[in-house]
């Protein structure tokens, strides 16, 4: 089973390593967490991942750490290297966990090139990726939150072309965009690079008849 991190000190020591460390924020009452531990156990026994360190952390017992990473639900698996968050997986998704451990186990320079692009530039290019751009939890086929789901339904009904970005897949964008746009919640809808707002505003525009014209600007 993954090594249990008992306190903040242990967490710091584990994640500061240069090796890829996988930290599973768990709760012993959540069935899905037992499943994730099995997945991590299986990965740890594979030769390819002999340099990867696997840990579990009882989220409710170490609030200082859990709050720092805004852990709202379990299981949440965060990958670290040298104290930096490398990736996050929400929920028991064995294939995603495996894919990400595999992806980040690579020590190539190619990886660091992507991370070196300043966040603000990344945000700007993401916002302008499509005329209508939605930052949401999940994607249009599998929204991961009620607000995001409602937004997708409304957008689909308008028939407008749009693209989405899953903020659950990238913690840097998730937090960075809130600051960049001075808007604390998701989903966030942008048209031609301008923030329109969240679900409440979209619903109001729909009711007042402004939505179609705003989206097609």
């Amino acid at each position, binding site marked *: 089973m993954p090594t249990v991190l008992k306190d903040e000190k242990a967490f710091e020591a584990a994640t500061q390593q240069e090796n890829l460390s996988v930290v599973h924020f768990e709760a012993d009452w959540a069935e899905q967490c037992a499943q994730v531990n099995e997945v991590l156990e299986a990965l740890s026994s594979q030769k390819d991942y002999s340099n990867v360190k696997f840990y579990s952390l009882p989220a409710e017992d170490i609030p200082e750490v*859990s709050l720092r990473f805004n852990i709202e639900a379990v299981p949440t698996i965060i990958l670290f290297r040298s104290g930096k968050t490398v990736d996050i997986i929400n*929920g028991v998704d064995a294939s995603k966990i495996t894919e990400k451990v595999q992806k980040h186990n690579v020590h190539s320079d190619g990886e660091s090139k992507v991370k070196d692009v300043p966040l603000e530039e990344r945000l700007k290019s993401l916002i302008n990726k499509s005329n209508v751009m939605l930052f949401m939890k999940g994607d249009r086929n599998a929204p991961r939150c009620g607000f995001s789901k409602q937004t997708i339904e409304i957008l689909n009904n308008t028939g407008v072309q749009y693209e989405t970005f899953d903020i659950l897949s990238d913690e840097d964008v998730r937090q960075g965009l809130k600051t960049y746009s001075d808007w604390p919640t998701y989903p966030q809808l942008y048209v031609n690079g301008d923030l329109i707002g969240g679900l409440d505003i979209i619903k*109001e525009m729909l009711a007042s008849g402004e939505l179609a014209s705003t989206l097609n600007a």
Partner: protein
Amino acid sequence: MYSFLKKSEYSQGSGPVTQAEITNKLRQEFPQATRISVEDTSGGCGAMFNISIVTSEFKGLSVMKQHRLVYDILKEQIKNIHGLHLETRVPK
């Protein structure tokens, strides 16, 4: 796939966000409001709120700016809740 942590059990500070806390903050910042309604729709868990504010202090601001103003005021509270529905209006 996912189980929600009982945030109120381990949050630091004075526990979950309350409807009273939000209402008081809004009353403070919008002294001219003709109506402030805050409803905890999560059954008292402080996780989801419906907020409605009618005040002349919104005059001249776009809906988005009105929402942004409220979000700024409730910055600390929003950090600790799961979500909120916001309705802002100018008195007729």
